[in-house]
């Protein structure tokens, strides 16, 4: 299969604000698209996730792979089609940037632990328990499916001086991401 790096839509391109539709057909062309999407994610510097609408395909498909980050719990390469958050817990603030928003990063509050139901690229149901950085990546990408950017969820810089949730253990999860 010949893979291609696709063009990433850059905000304020209004197409990024549009809601994506569920995938219904699992065929060869879907697999081909997902391979291209992954190639695009890996081509960008430091990209740990990508969503189909970022390349102008408005279907509910995301890819996340945070395995390149040391010391972070992860499930490796994940293709999630039609993902839904089934359960969520905790609230943490971390810094995010986006392939579709060059030269800007900001602090965003996310669920710390989530359970995600999705199907893989072959249509097989999957459920994932995830936390921290990986959970943040999935939430960031799932937002793209609903036309939301991290810019829609920024928390104020000053707000971060007073974390609302207590820190767990020695690791300061809230701001570590």
């Amino acid at each position, binding site marked *: 299969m010949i893979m291609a790096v696709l063009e990433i839509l850059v905000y304020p391109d209004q197409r990024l604000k549009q809601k994506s539709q569920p995938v219904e057909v699992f065929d060869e062309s879907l697999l081909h698209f997902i391979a291209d999407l992954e190639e695009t994610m890996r081509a960008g510097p430091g990209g740990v996730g990508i969503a189909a609408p970022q390349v102008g395909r408005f279907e509910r498909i995301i890819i996340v792979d945070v395995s390149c980050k040391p010391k972070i719990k992860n499930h490796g390469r994940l293709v999630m089609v039609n993902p839904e958050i089934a359960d969520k817990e905790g609230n943490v603030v971390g810094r995010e940037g986006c392939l579709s928003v060059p030269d800007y990063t900001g602090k965003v509050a996310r669920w710390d632990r989530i359970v995600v139901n999705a199907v893989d690229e072959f249509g097989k149901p999957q459920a994932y328990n995830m936390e921290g950085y990986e959970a943040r990546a999935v939430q960031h990408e799932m937002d793209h499916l609903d036309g939301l950017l991290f810019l829609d969820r920024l928390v104020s810089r000053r707000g971060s001086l007073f974390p609302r949730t207590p820190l767990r253990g020695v690791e300061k999860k809230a*701001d570590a*991401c």
Partner: protein
Amino acid sequence: MKNWFMLTLVGKDRPAIVAKISSVLFQENCNLGEASMTRLGGNFTIMLMIQFDGPADILDHVLQPVCDSLKLRYHVDQIDGELHHHLEPNVQISVHGADKAGIVAEVTRVLAAAGLDILNLESDVAGTSENPLYIMNIEGVAEKGVEALNQALKSVDCGEDVEVHLSEIDILRG
């Protein structure tokens, strides 16, 4: 190369200062760049990048009436500014505890010697006037590595009632 100025405004806080200043600047065809506004001790403060294709004294004439009417002190400097030059922090240091003299000096001295380039610093005094609580949050780039900062922070001496924590910032890009 664009012509950038840095405008600094300080004065008693009152409603709509930003709206009034920015509309005057807009009428003079100024473009606004990066800005940081905050209330410090009840004062309005802002630092604002302004792109203006004219000399500083014209900006001065434009700003004087509106600043006078708002009782704001202002200062304009021509700068070598450019947009799209953000640096990304990779460490965050939070300091909190009893408010006493010398915390900032001690912490920043140690961090600077260990290679911290500070990009952002915010501090606040919370608690009550009888029992003030000092809170500082620093973000920066660890030029000599995070471990150097961690080691250096062990030598910080602010007393037992002040806590200093360093955490790495791992920016998620997706």
